[in-house]
């Protein structure tokens, strides 16, 4: 009796193993690779066909890798993408590779969700880090290792109201302009009575990057608030603000053509420059973009935001995921499509500085554009990747309130900064 039960149990186990084996075999017929992607544009610009680049890359990839099917969930809006990704990670269903928003990068690295790509990069002969702009690649690094590859980048640039400058008889500044020129122009343009101003939304943070300074070190352990270059930036921003005689300039002032300058993301320039958009948003004046003005200790440097691609640390198809990641990041035909279907700059100099592409881009601008391949090269290779770490937001609030206080307090500013710097350092080292 007992022997009979054992035999039956054995047979049952065997059948079960067979079933599992069959399922395994059937499953291995086609490999499904999943990729996480958001809908629309991360850069807050209208984007008609957001999956075009991805679909093209997937077609290329599937042709290259027969038996592999790439899938993605469509329709996740950009602002819900981080939450969606976090949910997938909690449920353990995250895609094999996914787009990494700049603000999520630190969290994804420190929680161990992203695979370290150092080994892959070193072992893959087709991968060459020198093909990238260094700051773009650096965006995907943490703790000295590469965790994500850049897909597209967007630097901060300066919008210029050409019409307003012409009205005031001022020449369009060059791409190598300085704080002094910037201040002079603002000074000339500003006329508080007729609601005419030099600049909108230019803060001490914009100023400090172009003054060669940085507020925090790369791993977020120390703050340089009392650094002289930071102080210069704070002073300069205050000086510019003082020109407005107490009036708070608004976005609307700029939109109606009453402000000469406004720092903007490159993507805005790209999105609104082509004909239909240009009419819609800034139709009352002619405008163009130039790089940020250089401070006394810095150069025409701007902040860089980079959309990246990372491989999940738990993927079962790491090689395939890496291949697709590389394709989206490095393949020239894929990257070229950024010009058509997105508003960023390719992290690859070969594409970003392609003059044919640039002239295509600028054919809508009546009087030609200030963006030559050289300018793009300068902006991209010197751009600053703002360190994003755990306590970044809180530390930033502390720094901003200290700057605000010192701006209000006048001469006691320096000691207030030192105190604040000490407090922030303590905070950073505690968190």
């Amino acid at each position: 009796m007992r022997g009979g039960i054992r035999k039956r149990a054995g047979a049952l186990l065997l059948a079960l193993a067979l079933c599992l084996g069959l399922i395994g075999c059937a499953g291995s017929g086609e490999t499904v690779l999943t990729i996480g992607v958001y809908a629309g544009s991360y850069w807050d610009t209208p984007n008609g066909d957001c999956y075009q680049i991805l679909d093209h890359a997937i077609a290329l990839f599937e042709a290259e890798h027969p038996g592999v099917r790439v899938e993605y969930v469509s329709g996740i809006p950009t602002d819900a993408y981080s939450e969606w990704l976090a949910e997938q990670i909690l449920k353990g269903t995250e895609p094999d590779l996914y787009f990494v928003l700049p603000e999520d990068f630190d969290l994804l690295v420190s929680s161990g969700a992203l695979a370290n790509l150092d080994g892959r990069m070193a072992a893959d002969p087709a991968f060459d880090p020198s093909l990238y702009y260094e700051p773009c690649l650096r965006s995907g690094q943490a703790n000295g290792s590469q965790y994500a590859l850049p897909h597209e980048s967007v630097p901060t640039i300066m919008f210029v109201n050409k019409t307003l400058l012409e009205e005031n008889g001022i020449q369009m500044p060059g791409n190598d302009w300085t704080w002094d020129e910037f201040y002079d122009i603002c000074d000339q343009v500003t006329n508080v009575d007729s609601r005419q101003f030099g600049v909108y939304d230019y803060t001490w943070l914009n100023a400090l990057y172009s003054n060669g300074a940085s507020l925090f070190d790369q791993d977020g352990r120390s703050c340089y608030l009392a650094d002289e270059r930071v102080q210069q930036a704070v002073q300069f921003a205050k000086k510019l603000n003082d020109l407005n005689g107490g009036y708070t300039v608004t976005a609307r002032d700029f939109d109606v053509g009453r402000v000469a300058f406004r720092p903007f993301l490159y993507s805005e320039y790209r999105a609104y420059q082509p004909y239909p958009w240009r009419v819609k948003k800034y139709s009352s004046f002619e405008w163009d973009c130039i790089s940020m003005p250089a401070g006394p200790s810095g150069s025409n440097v701007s902040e860089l935001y980079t959309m990246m691609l990372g491989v999940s640390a738990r993927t079962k198809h790491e090689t395939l995921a890496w291949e697709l990641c590389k394709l989206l990041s490095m393949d020239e035909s894929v990257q070229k499509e950024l010009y058509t279907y997105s508003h960023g700059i390719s992290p690859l100099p070969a594409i970003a500085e392609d003059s044919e592409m640039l002239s295509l881009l600028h054919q809508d601008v009546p009087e030609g554009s200030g963006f030559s391949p050289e300018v793009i090269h300068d902006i991209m290779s010197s751009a600053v990747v703002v360190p994003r770490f755990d306590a970044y937001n809180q530390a930033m609030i502390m720094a901003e309130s200290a700057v605000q206080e010192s701006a209000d307090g006048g001469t006691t500013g320096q000691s207030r900064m030192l105190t604040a710097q000490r407090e922030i350092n303590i905070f950073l080292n505690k968190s």
Partner: protein
Amino acid sequence: MKNEKELSTIAVVMFALNFSIILFYSLICVATTFRLCQSFSAYDFLSSVRQVPRYPWQMPVQSLSLYALLCAVSVLKNLRPTERFPLRVAICVAEIALCMGIIASLDFYYSGIALLVLADLVHYVRNGKMRLCFIVVLSLLFAFGRYEIVAHSTGRIAFTAYLSYYDQTAQGWFTGLESLMVCCNILLFVLFMILLFTGQKEENARIRKLNEQLNQANDQLRDYAVNMERMTEMRERNRLAREIHDTLGHTLTGIIMGADAGLALFDAAPEESKKRIQVVAQSARDGLTDVRRSIKALRPDALERSSLAEALEGLVENFHLTTSAEIDYSQEAGPLEFAADEEDTLYRVVQEGMTNAVRHGHADRIAIRLTRAGDVVTVSVRDNGSGSGKTEEGFGLRHMRERLDMLGGSFTYGNLSKEAADGYTGFFITVDLPVRSGKGE
């Protein structure tokens, strides 16, 4: 054991309770994960724990399947008990390994499983050293298998992180339930241990009492034996006295009276006197026969029942059995058919020699050899004992010498050489006994 039933009841309750605890932790973690996702708090959760959690199915599947295995091992080891030591150790080690697996698969939220396994094993293992070893290992597991100690830096998510998703009331309920169950587990463990040890103590006391009774009975038996011996001795003495009185007394009285009558008649009637003295002589002869018969009655039982050869073999065999000394007995003296007194002497020599070897020399090997050259039978007894430090004869040897003197035999003894090749380095006795040809007289 007396409270075996209570113990197994507590064990079953503990197994059930631990199952609920595992289920509790698994459910909270899985349910919270999905609730977090439903309420769009996944990103906040991830930013606060900064750690990719394990796959949600992992904790319940791993911990419950390992727990099922643990239960199976525990039940099987009681259903089909084994006495094979390696197997028993393997079972215990398997239980401890499963316990570790469960604690790890629960992300170290709960280490009370170690108490369950500890109770189970302490009951199962009787070997003191091994039991102590398991107690130490499992206590360490219980004390240190905690999230706060082990997993804090290994990138596991704290249970409190999951709890913090809920509002204060729910958190209170959950932590209350958690500590209630954990406390119950500890209390059950303590109860189990108390019952187990009091049960063992009672058993020990019972055994001690039985032992005392046994010792008492033994003492009584010994006293009884001593009394018995004394009584036997007394009876024997009485028998001898009666025998002497009945035979010798009677005969001697007759002889004296006959001799007196002979003397009185010697001059008056020499013929009559001669007759009388003849009667006295006959009476003396009859008396001697009577004495012989009496002495025969005192012979060793063995010789009374069987031949000397058989008696000696029996003696050697018995001695080997009772003392476990190894005895090399070789009989090369041909047929052993001698007069009763000679047989008695030979028997006593062998008996005394063996007894001395074991009693005084503490030997465990004895060689006995019987040879015959003409009318002289030689008995040699050698042993591997410590020999004798004394030179004077003890009672046994003196007695032996007296017996031999009576029969005209000779007798040597002493220590053997310490370098003897055959290993007999103790004491030796050699007896030469001239035998009268024929049996008896």
